[in-house]
């Protein structure tokens, strides 16, 4: 977080699936900013809507209400074609499952350059090949791999191809949706290191979507916890981990098994009971408890949280 320039602003985002009786509000009034150069993490259980937010920013899911700004300009709704092009190029995504996210019938060369071809972002054939070469080298693969098919690679290598595909577009902002949860322990570290060195070299901003909190703690600058379509807590990562305030955050943190048999044996896992809030009579809002630390709570709870602050889990 060297500069505090806002790259992405999400304002009162609402995503609704279905209509009428089948209406389902996946994301309910979510707002947050992502600063340039930082890694912002979204954590939550499956079904909490973290992927939906990522996909809304990618413009895969339609936004029902609210706004998403990139460099201060809206990216959803009616926008000029040139700007649309630019966003397509500047915002890229890395997917969860490297086994499913690559076209089995296309060569690596095609997989990586598909985006280039769509945006005609190369001068001539030689330039295109050079770009692919560089993208492959950047992610630690050999340029010769361009002529191979995805099935010839291991999971870690495939994920690198997925990253190369995003990189070749020269993006500013990358959404990484559980990029390492499908990988083996020893490969995870490699891919994590790759992501952070690429961030430094290319001045990238990441939105990191994950459910593995130990990795989130390692990689991200700020973290938002999402529960059933609402962000319940948002803070700088270390603050969130050392002083979790919302009961759901505390549950989530206590559920993560630590690599210490002594600690684990004595640990009691907290269970989150959403009925503990009286939100029908006293609706909650997203409030700042301390600088940069936001919690979803109502007046009465915020008082309680303020007084019993510092009750960190570990």
């Amino acid at each position: 977080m060297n500069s505090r320039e806002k790259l992405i602003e999400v304002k009162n985002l609402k995503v609704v699936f279905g209509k009428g009786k089948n209406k389902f509000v996946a994301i309910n009034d979510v707002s947050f900013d992502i600063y340039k150069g930082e890694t912002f993490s979204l954590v939550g259980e499956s079904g909490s809507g973290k992927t939906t937010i990522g996909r809304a920013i990618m413009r895969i899911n339609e936004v029902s209400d609210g706004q998403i700004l990139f460099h201060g300009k809206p990216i959803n709704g009616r926008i000029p074609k040139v700007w649309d092009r630019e966003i397509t190029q500047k915002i890229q995504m890395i997917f969860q499952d490297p086994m499913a996210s690559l076209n089995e019938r296309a060569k690596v060369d095609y997989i990586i350059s598909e985006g280039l071809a769509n945006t005609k972002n190369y001068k001539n054939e030689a330039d295109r090949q050079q770009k692919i070469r560089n993208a492959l080298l950047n992610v630690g693969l050999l340029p010769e791999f361009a002529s191979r098919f995805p099935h010839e690679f291991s999971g870690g290598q495939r994920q690198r191809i997925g990253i190369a595909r995003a990189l070749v577009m020269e993006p500013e902002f990358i959404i990484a949706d559980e990029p390492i949860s499908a990988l083996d322990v020893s490969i995870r570290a490699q891919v994590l290191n790759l992501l952070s060195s690429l961030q430094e070299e290319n001045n990238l901003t990441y939105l990191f979507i994950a459910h593995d909190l130990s990795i989130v703690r390692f990689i991200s600058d700020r973290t938002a916890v999402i529960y059933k379509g609402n962000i319940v807590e948002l803070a700088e990562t270390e603050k969130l981990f050392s002083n979790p305030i919302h009961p759901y955050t505390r549950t989530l943190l206590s559920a993560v098994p630590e690599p210490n048999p002594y600690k684990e044996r004595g640990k009691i896992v907290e269970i989150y009971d959403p009925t503990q809030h009286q939100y029908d009579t006293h609706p909650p809002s997203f409030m700042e408890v301390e600088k940069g630390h936001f919690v979803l709570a109502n007046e009465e709870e915020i008082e309680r949280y303020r007084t019993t602050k510092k009750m960190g889990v570990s």
Partner: protein
Amino acid sequence: MMEANHPQERILSIQNLVIQFTLRGQVLKAIRDISLDLYKGESLAIVGESGSGKSVLVKSIMGLLDKNGYIDQGQILYNDMDLAGFKTEEDWLKIRGKEIAMVTQDPMTSLNPLKTIGKQIEECVVLHQGLKGKEAYHVTLKLLTDVGIYDVEKRYKQYPHEFSGGMRQRIVIAIALACNPKILICDEPTTALDVTIQAQILQLLKNLQKKYGLTTVYITHDLGVVAKVADRIAVMYAGDIIEVGKAHEVFFDGKHPYTWALISSLPQLGSKGEQLFSIKGTPPNLFKEIKGDAFAPRNQYALKIDFVERPPFFKVSDTHYARTWLLDPRSPKVELPEALLAFFEEGRSYANEQ
């Protein structure tokens, strides 16, 4: 506490097991001469990367090896029987389910979508406990209650798609328990689940282990899960067990460089802004004969002998053994990275507190 549930009665003993697969005319050695004892009432975790052979090992205990796989040598001793010698399905039916049951990884695919979950559990009750009608029905309901499902009479009549992932995993566990097994094998029981659900399922498994007096074997690559459930840990690499010991011994007094590497690549040991430790290279090709220590080419502490001769098990304590030449008195002392030493230090400090 740990000593209490670690009696020395052996329930299963694997001796010098070698398992091979024939694939496209080539022979792949998936398990390379493994010996392992399982003690009654304990919970053992087998840790390793994918491809290390941990699933193959437990599948061989259940007689579930793929058609092209076979036990080349060695014995699997259980109740005076050698499971490695079993040839027919009939032999295996005496063991499978009744004596040794298994909870698989993905609860989304391991249930029959066309049958109610009650019928699926009852099927096992009828087959393995020999009960019928009303009796079987009641046992089924009791099992459902035991695995933490409410409103059992209504749930009995529901189909798998009406349940969430965590609930389905509970049902799979109920099916495994319906066979009244002595040994329960859990193959990555929680990888498909959320952390909060994972915590609940692991707690459930621990409770059931006590209640039913089970011996459990966990297969996992998540060291956090291992820390939560295991009394003993066996670390596997390239078809071999390279270190085995009590949980705290392997975590905080690990001796094999691969164990060190696994622990070092935990994000908890990294410091922000710096590169996380990662194991270089890839696991060896098991089609080829492995000489020496399989981990040697990726091992920064490798000695010359590691490339020539397979290390034997060196004894660290009565319960802790490691297969590395570094434990040989003639080998040089190695300097471990500070983050790892700090992790050992911190971990051991908890031991004194208890």
